């Protein structure tokens, strides 16, 4: 008897398993995350994410290498966990300006948004998938370098005791998630206003640079209250990082440093929620079907 089997039956009815509709959010998030990182795309799409990630990892790498090569951990000469967010502030802004516009803008420009919404997604679920993707990718830059640093120090024998290491791990995760939330939500809100990636990227950079200038000028020149420094979004994230790790910034006289931890954390959360709400409002009005 022949052992031949027919594998290619051609197009036919599908009676296999199907996922629950909610899983479409995760599918969209994974697909978007891969695209913004350039995975499965040409080399030119990988260059910018790779460079930005490399820049973000560089301080951690240098710290580890210096410590291992000199066989000495000189804490005062190395970047601390708390100041890492401040140190890679520019890379964070650039990464956010790269990721969110790439996640949102092409779908509206190419008509993919209509195709997504013609499937088992509504606008809220679509945005949830996109936000999850941008947030997840942002954690690559806010959490991974610090995790790498902690792991390397543990392996090199420079880490504190097990208990302290676990505490440090939790602080790394908390600080990284908070920073990722702020950068992801603000860049998503900006990207919801245009179909052009370049415009969204520039606007994102401006959002992290112009308000801080305005706020600090107003505080320095017009005696505006220190609370105005909550508009300095990058500093809000780095200040919260310092406090999560129980550290004090070198320049502790900055307006943001005068605010209570509750206010800084509340400001970060409020800005994030407000940005996501703006994004949601924008997508309620966007014409997706053409």
């Amino acid at each position: 008897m022949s052992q031949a089997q027919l594998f290619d039956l051609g197009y036919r009815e599908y009676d296999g398993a199907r996922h629950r509709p909610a899983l479409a959010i995760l599918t969209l998030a994974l697909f978007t995350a891969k695209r913004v990182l350039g995975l499965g795309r040409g080399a030119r799409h990988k260059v910018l994410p790779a460079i930005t990630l490399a820049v973000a990892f560089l301080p951690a790498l240098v710290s580890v290498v210096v410590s291992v090569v000199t066989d000495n951990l000189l804490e005062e000469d190395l970047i601390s966990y708390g100041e890492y967010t401040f140190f890679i502030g520019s890379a964070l802004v650039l990464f956010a300006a790269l990721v969110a516009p790439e996640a949102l803008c092409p779908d509206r420009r190419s008509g993919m948004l209509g195709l997504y919404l013609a499937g088992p997604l509504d606008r809220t679920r679509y945005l949830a998938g996109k936000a999850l993707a941008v947030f997840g990718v942002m954690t690559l830059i806010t959490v991974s370098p610090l995790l790498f640093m902690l792991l390397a120090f543990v392996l090199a024998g420079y880490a504190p005791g097990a208990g302290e290491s676990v505490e440090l791990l939790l602080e790394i995760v908390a600080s990284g998630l908070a920073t990722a939330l702020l950068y992801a939500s603000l860049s998503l809100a900006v990207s919801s206003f245009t179909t052009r990636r370049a415009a969204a990227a520039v606007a994102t950079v401006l959002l992290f640079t112009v308000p801080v200038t305005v706020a600090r000028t107003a505080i320095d020149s017009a005696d505006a209250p220190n609370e105005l420094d909550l508009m300095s979004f990058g500093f809000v994230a780095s200040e919260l990082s310092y406090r999560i790790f129980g550290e004090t910034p070198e320049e502790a006289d900055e307006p943001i440093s005068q605010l209570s931890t509750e206010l800084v954390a509340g400001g970060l959360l409020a800005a994030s929620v407000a940005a996501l709400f703006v994004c949601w409002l924008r997508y309620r009005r966007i014409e997706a079907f053409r």
Partner: protein
Amino acid sequence: MSAVPDSEPAFERVISARDVTKRYGRTVALAGLTADIGPGITGLLGSNGAGKTTFMSIVLGLRTRDAGELTVLGHDPATAGIEIRSRIGYAPEHHDLPAELSASDFVRHLAEMHLLPGRAAMQRANEALWLVGLGEERFRPVGTMSTGQRQRVKLASAIAHDPELVLLDEPTDGLDPLQRTTMLDLIRRIGTEFGLHIVVSSHHLEEVERICDAVVIVEGGVVVRAGAMADVRQGPEGLVVEVDDRVEELAALLREHGLEVVVDGSRLLLGADEGVHDAVRDAVAELGLGLRRLEPRGRTLEDVYMGAGS
């Protein structure tokens, strides 16, 4: 109006709309559209701006209707949009697809978005692309494909997840005559061979006439005519006769037998008089003519469309 043959029971109606109204500000897009769309391939026919795309978007639950009742696959899209859309395949009119994605990745991704597991989605995407004739081209980026190929990619993405209902918005837009013929044959095959219910939006009469089992003609946001294609084209009773030569001689001979005859180019249009078939047979034999066509009189969809619009 109903595009469902009378013999079809109500539960087999794929789409049922009653007085569906949609306004955009002061513009009335749908002005009480009423139609039943049954199984098989149905043409949604109308000029640009007639309300076809608006109706499709309401069927998908992407726009809300202002008034009226609508059920799609037994559900109201206003309240069960996600449930309905997971069972629908949709190919939009526009050709703007992600340029860098390969056809295979694009179709697979949309199949996954329609809740197929990863491996099944990949297999179905390949099968669908082979079906539409892009098997060899499936790893090419969509951005490098011609309009005809993109139309087929859209068709593949609409059927890959094995939907119950497929909505195709102007699927032959931008195609040359040969590509158009191929696409129409493909749609017909998908509708008949695989049993998918298909609604094709078009403003090309001959396309709808060629592949559809039923038609809904929309103008000014209302249905002006709907029904099974054979019913819609039902015209005055009688015969159409076409001979290879000497049409006027044949007409004169038939008139001598007391028949009403209208000469229409190379065709003769006759009434349903008693004995008309025998009279035609005898007259053709008497004159020694070659008989090219002898069939019951009917109307083309163009006749119906022009009549409905007037």
